[in-house]
């Protein structure tokens, strides 16, 4: 196996005295889609936040492309090409779609490249192009998710951290979003680490998956094997 592009080594994170992550190990290979599954409060979102440094780890390390980024500032991690799409989308409701997308390319100083990327995002999400002058807050849930993802793509990420992209969306839209994630992965070779409660949807297109329970990894393996094993699906992922 190659050197993984991202690897978490004995990562521990806590909120005050309460441990959210109890020493987890995760490896993500370049070009892979890896799903992080588990119930509420298992530590999935905390894992992503620790990677992007929105929360500081209490011990262990995050290695990205051979470099230790555990205690880097969030903005410098973004500059390295690791983009976090936070849970609940976190789009700016009072800004227009276009302004939201332009925020995504904040680290960029070149207007021509910005325009090109904007067009690419509109290609990928035509609905955003149609609504570019509308306020973010007036988009539907699915459109907001697309906006959040589009905003992340404005930086041309190497590694995309997606937090519950299917949350609160209708099944048809979930499928649409998942298809686009696959497309981003295929066309741009973007590595994707994805947190999901909707295990079935995630296992359908991820390469590998980890299952978290109360801050520990209880299972890992290829997505295919996992989705076949009914008992595992029932025990850890729910129906």
């Amino acid at each position, binding site marked *: 196996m190659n050197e993984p592009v991202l690897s978490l080594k004995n990562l521990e994170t806590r909120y005050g005295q309460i441990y959210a992550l109890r020493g987890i190990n995760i490896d993500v290979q370049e070009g892979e889609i890896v799903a992080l599954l588990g119930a509420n409060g298992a530590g999935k979102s905390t894992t992503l936040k620790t990677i*992007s440094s929105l929360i500081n780890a209490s011990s262990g390390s995050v290695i990205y492309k051979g470099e230790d980024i555990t205690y880097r500032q969030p*903005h410098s991690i*973004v500059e390295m090409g690791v983009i976090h799409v936070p849970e609940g989308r976190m789009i700016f409701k009072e800004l227009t779609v276009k302004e939201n997308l332009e925020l*995504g390319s904040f680290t960029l100083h070149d207007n021509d490249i910005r325009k090109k990327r904007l067009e690419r995002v509109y290609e990928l999400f035509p609905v955003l192009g149609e609504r570019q002058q509308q306020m973010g*807050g*007036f988009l539907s849930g699915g459109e907001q998710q697309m906006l959040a993802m589009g905003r992340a793509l404005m930086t041309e990420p190497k590694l995309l951290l997606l937090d519950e992209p299917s949350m609160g969306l209708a099944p048809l839209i979930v499928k649409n979003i998942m298809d686009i994630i696959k497309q981003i992965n295929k066309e741009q070779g973007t590595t994707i680490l994805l947190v999901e409660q909707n295990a079935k949807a995630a296992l359908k297109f991820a390469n590998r998956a980890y299952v978290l329970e109360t801050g520990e990894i209880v299972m890992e393996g290829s997505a295919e094997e996992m989705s076949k094993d009914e008992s595992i699906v029932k025990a850890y992922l729910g129906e």
Partner: protein
Amino acid sequence: MAETKNKHKIKNPFEGIIEKLFMIFENKIYLYGFFAALVVFLVIFPNTSSRFTQEIMTNLFFYVVVCLGLNIIVGYAGLLHLGYAAFFAVGAYTTGILSSRMGMDFWLTIPFSIVAAVIAGLAIGFPTLRLRGDYLAIVTLGFGEITRLTIRNLDVTGGAIGLIGIQRPEFFGITLNQISHFYYMFFILAILAIIVSYRLENSRMGRAWEYIREDEDAAAAMGINVTTSRLYAFIIGSAFGAVAGSFFAAKMTAISPDSFMFIHSVMFLMAVVLGGMGKIPGVVLGSVLVVLIPEVARGIGPYRLLIFGFLLLIIMLYRPQGIWPEKPTISTDE
């Protein structure tokens, strides 16, 4: 955009009227026409008014400058600052000490007062800007009081009596000593402050502040250096206050710790919040109200401050977002 406007919820009888009033200014011709008329009016104003009125107007321009500075911190960067008078004091005392004790020319003291404010801003901002909301307010409140008490107890600042004999500035050979001189000086300063604020608002930094204010984590996740951006807001805002303080010292020729009480920080903050945080016309309007209402109401006699307080209460109850807020109020919570 028509769609967004239909979603306005009319919550009180005033709201619709005020929105309509400001809608007039959406039209650029009316807007520029209004500003041109206002500037002409303000330029000829001293020739037609008493010294007392000029004094009030000078105070008003002064408030505009200080409040625009505070607006950078509170309105743009979204940091609640309760000790702004301290930065204003740093500027005033730097000019005061250099001018009255060392005989330095007024204009030369301004760079020193900016540097002093930047140092003070860094000293207070660097360790505290990681704090959120309420905690920062407490720290700035403490800083304001500490500064005032330090000034009160140092020899170089003249203690409780303060400094006297600050030299009047000269401007192309004219010594500025008439109230009309200061009227024009603060008028120009206010216009400069508006221009600088406008440039800041539309800069890269201004956009970063806007994003951070809306959602700190999302901004950080998009590659904005939150701490540095806030520190810039803090420093730039402090420098604004210090420059205003320098001119204040030159106008008064005597300053004492009583000019930099907590109540002044509160009045500045009130003007910013009242008018509408984060928007230049709003802040200017807030300054106008805070300075003019107590003066206009002077005829009422001893109850004027009571009425002032009552008016503020009404405004905040019916327009908690400020009279002229940054964006029209739309509810996007659903």
